[in-house]
């Protein structure tokens, strides 16, 4: 759309000025009412592009056309085209410069700015044209937008976006939704309950939002309207339940969430000597619903409620000090509703009490050991269904470094030693043989390497996170991290005998994250951050408060389930709501 012609306006202004100069004030007064009509309206400025997105071309220009409305006087157009902070030449495509043309021979984001000078107050326009390389492939990603708690917006919001590989890309501004669904009530079997609720998009895509309800069942889910799958985990005896599709609508002000209290499941747990096992924690997860759990009484019996479904995952965690593994197994829910007879059997135990914990030759008083491992069969259910054994047994050494009585299942286990806080070592321990006199934690090993940017220069400030795997992970060892120093080199302590994976990322966004296995030699060599592309966008908000300090994370969609839960890139919005993320060239 072309702007309104201003020639007549200009003539009118000149005419009025001339009349004034001739002293014909009356004539001017007659038309002054039309000209000085209170405050000039705020005009609207927009620009359309053709083509958009465009392909790189040294001959075919991109045309930008100004669409200006609601302005007064003469409009003068002042354009600017920038790519990578460099000015891009352009030519007027219209005599009044209301449209321009420019060549975009290189892929990337071309920022177009337009200032309209007129009698009205016109905002400065800034927009982007994406110029894509030949053969650019669109790929789906998910943006998770998390406003700070207490803001007018909802909780985390997921938005799907299409991004093109191989080039920086600007995506249209994202509207930040405000909370529409407020106070609700949750109940079980018709009675309000304190509960934990998890709302997932019914489409199956996206992350969930968690809410807690108090004893009166009241909660504040702060969801955007839509369909959700709801998981409810009541506190107390009721079974968790799932609602496959629950519609959050702003108009349904007090729609309650209710589900069945579940069916009773009961049974007994007996130790390898066939004696009742009190104090064991029995939990059951049905079709992925969070588990219900019960603690066995003095007679080894337990009672709990389980929800309907097809498959139950049963876990028995024995009380400490008995040298028993956890029992784990799957069973049909129909079986779970029968009386359950759980018995430990099929393994022997060996006491490692008296074994001395040492650290580089010296005793390690108050050192801690976690024994982990697996037994293919450690129990039986209802005399016909074998249960797997997972060893997770901890012991703390005394002042002399010796372990107290610590029975362990006889199996090929791993002892994860923590002779002092922050120091770890993983030792194989075969408890089918007599125990060793001591467990020696060698000095921490060091993973070394050099991190470079995607441009192959040193990347000081990058972060190397060492993620335990195998026995270390099973023992609950946390991931540790180190910041890369000058020259790009790093050296980080790791547990001897431990398996690790290194996640290398750069807060300064000089490249995308890399995930590499740490070899036994502990030498990672040179790791280059991945090539990445910058995507830019902006959050807009309907509320008065600017959308600043909002977390924006990018997740892959066409990747493994595990990777879908780990952000590829993270950013926070600035004062204007703008943000910038780095997208890896290749998905993990």
């Amino acid at each position: 759309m072309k702007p309104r012609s201003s020639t007549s306006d200009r003539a009118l202004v000149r005419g009025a000025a001339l009349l004034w100069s001739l002293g014909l004030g009356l004539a001017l007064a007659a038309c002054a009412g039309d000209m000085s009509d209170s405050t000039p309206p705020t005009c609207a400025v927009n620009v359309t592009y053709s083509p958009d997105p465009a392909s790189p071309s040294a001959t075919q220009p991109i045309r930008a056309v100004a669409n200006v409305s609601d302005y007064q006087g003469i409009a003068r157009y002042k354009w600017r085209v920038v790519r990578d902070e460099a000015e891009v030449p352009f030519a007027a495509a219209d005599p009044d410069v209301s449209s321009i043309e420019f060549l975009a021979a290189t892929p990337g984001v071309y920022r177009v700015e337009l200032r309209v000078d007129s009698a009205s107050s016109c905002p400065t326009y800034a927009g982007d044209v994406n110029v894509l390389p030949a053969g650019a492939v669109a790929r789906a990603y998910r943006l998770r937008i998390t406003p700070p708690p207490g803001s007018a917006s909802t909780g985390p919001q997921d938005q799907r976006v299409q991004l093109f590989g191989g080039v920086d890309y600007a995506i249209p501004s994202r509207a930040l939704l405000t909370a529409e669904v407020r106070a609700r009530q949750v109940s079980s079997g018709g009675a309000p309950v304190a509960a934990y609720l998890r709302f997932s998009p019914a489409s199956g895509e996206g992350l969930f939002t968690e809410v807690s309800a108090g004893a009166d069942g009241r909660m504040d889910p702060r969801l955007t309207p839509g369909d959700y799958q709801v998981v409810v985990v009541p506190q107390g005896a009721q079974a968790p339940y799932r609602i496959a599709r629950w519609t959050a609508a702003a108009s349904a002000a007090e729609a309650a969430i209710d589900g069945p209290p579940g069916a009773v499941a009961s049974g007994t747990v007996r130790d390898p000597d066939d004696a009742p096992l009190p104090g064991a924690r029995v939990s059951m997860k049905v079709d992925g619903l969070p588990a219900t759990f019960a603690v066995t009484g003095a007679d080894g019996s337990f009672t709990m409620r389980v929800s309907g479904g097809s498959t139950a995952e049963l876990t028995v965690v024995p009380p400490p000090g008995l040298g028993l593994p956890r029992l784990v197994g799957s069973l049909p829910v129909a079986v779970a509703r029968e009386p359950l007879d759980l018995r430990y059997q099929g393994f022997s135990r060996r006491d490692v009490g008296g074994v001395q914990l040492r650290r580089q030759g010296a005793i390690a008083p108050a050192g801690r050991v976690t024994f982990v491992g697996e037994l293919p069969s450690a129990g039986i259910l209802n005399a016909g269904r074998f249960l797997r054994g997972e060893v997770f047994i901890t012991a703390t050494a005394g002042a002399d470094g010796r372990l107290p009585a610590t029975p362990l299942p006889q199996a090929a286990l791993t002892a994860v030693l923590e002779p002092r806080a922050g120091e770890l070592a993983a030792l194989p321990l075969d408890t089918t043989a007599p125990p060793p006199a001591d467990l020696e934690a060698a000095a921490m090993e060091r993973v070394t390497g050099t991190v470079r940017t995607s441009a192959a220069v040193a990347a000081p400030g990058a972060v190397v996170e060492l993620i335990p795997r195998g026995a270390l992970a099973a023992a609950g060892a946390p991931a540790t991290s180190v910041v890369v120093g000058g020259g790009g080199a790093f050296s980080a302590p790791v547990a001897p005998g431990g398996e690790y994976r290194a996640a290398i990322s750069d807060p300064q966004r000089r490249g995308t994250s890399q995930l590499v296995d740490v070899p036994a030699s502990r030498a990672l060599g040179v790791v280059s951050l991945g090539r990445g592309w910058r995507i830019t966008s902006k959050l807009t908000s309907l509320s008065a408060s600017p959308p600043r300090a909002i977390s924006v994370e990018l997740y892959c969609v066409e990747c493994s389930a595990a990777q879908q839960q780990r952000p590829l890139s993270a950013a926070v919005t600035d004062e204007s709501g703008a943000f910038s993320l780095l997208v890896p060239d290749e998905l993990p």
Partner: protein
Amino acid sequence: MARRGLRSETGVSLPGRAPFARPASARSTLCARSTLIAFCALSAGCFYLDDINQRPAIEIFRRTTTAIERGSTVTVSAIVRDPDSGSVSLSWAGYACAATLDACDDTPIAESSAIDFELEVPRRTAADQSVQHLRVTLVAQDDRGAAALVPQRLDLDVVNAAPQITALQTVGRGFVVGRALELRAQRSDADDPLSSVVLTWEVFPPVGSTRPPLRALPSADPSVEAKELIPDVTGAWEIKVTATDPSGATGTLQRTLVVTGDSPPCLTSLSPPAAAPLFLDELRRFSVLVVEDDLDPYPAVTAPSPGAASFAWSLRAPSRGPARLPLTGVGGTGVELDPAAFSPGEVVELRVEVADREPRTLPCADGDATCSLTGNACAQRQTWRLEVR
């Protein structure tokens, strides 16, 4: 010179009205009178009178008395009197002059034949000197070729408009010791090109400052000059910017910036939020999404990161004893917890505390789930309470 019959009255020009186009009614009345006189004279036979054309008289009238600046528009008008009430043609010319009226351009900057003469005052003469005077000339000639006896000339002084600093702005939120702030001064000058207006920056820091230098920043707007300042002490900083044009005229603008110390960092956003008790039924990552801080925010709003917030993680789980155990070596923004490492029904507390470059001690007891040095919503400690299932 042509002679016409005797006239008994002269034409009068009214200011602001064109007198040189004689009204038709006046013309016919005059004609009738002349005819009558001629008839009487001839019939009497006693005398003969011829109509003698007289020169028009002109004056230049300047409408406004406001000072004339370069780049502005000046309008002058002609007052014309033709004794014969004939049609008078005008010829205007305007000339730009430098320091003296002897140094005017040979070529006029504007010409006109209208009653009003409007001309835009140039900034530079043809010899590329600053315009300091204007000369306007007017020549008039009636329809019988009689010119005004003395060509009119009006010399006008052109004053220099002083430059102005129209805005002295800062970019960003608040002013904090150690954090770079961007100062943007916008200049304007009515009659000199902006490139010729020089800005002088003066910084008056509080006592104790080492007087950090201003660093020039690029600016896409030619009217704006941008500087970066990194305050090194708290207090009131005076920033004074002076614009000077080629004629030496100046304009200044001064602003006071109150610089504060580095505030404690705030754990603004966590994933998942730590406000409500949560369930741990699968491997989950607990992470800090946003830290707001003057110098060490996370993630960095602009790259490269100006600093680095640091995190201290700790865990308390009944199955691992009563004490809260620091997760030594965990310095990142997130921790993964596996429910398999705990017992069903066990309530685990995962805690994160944030610190910036300023050493501070949290004033709260270990049992407090959150802690704020400033006693408001800006918390440096958050605790997730997780029930293992």
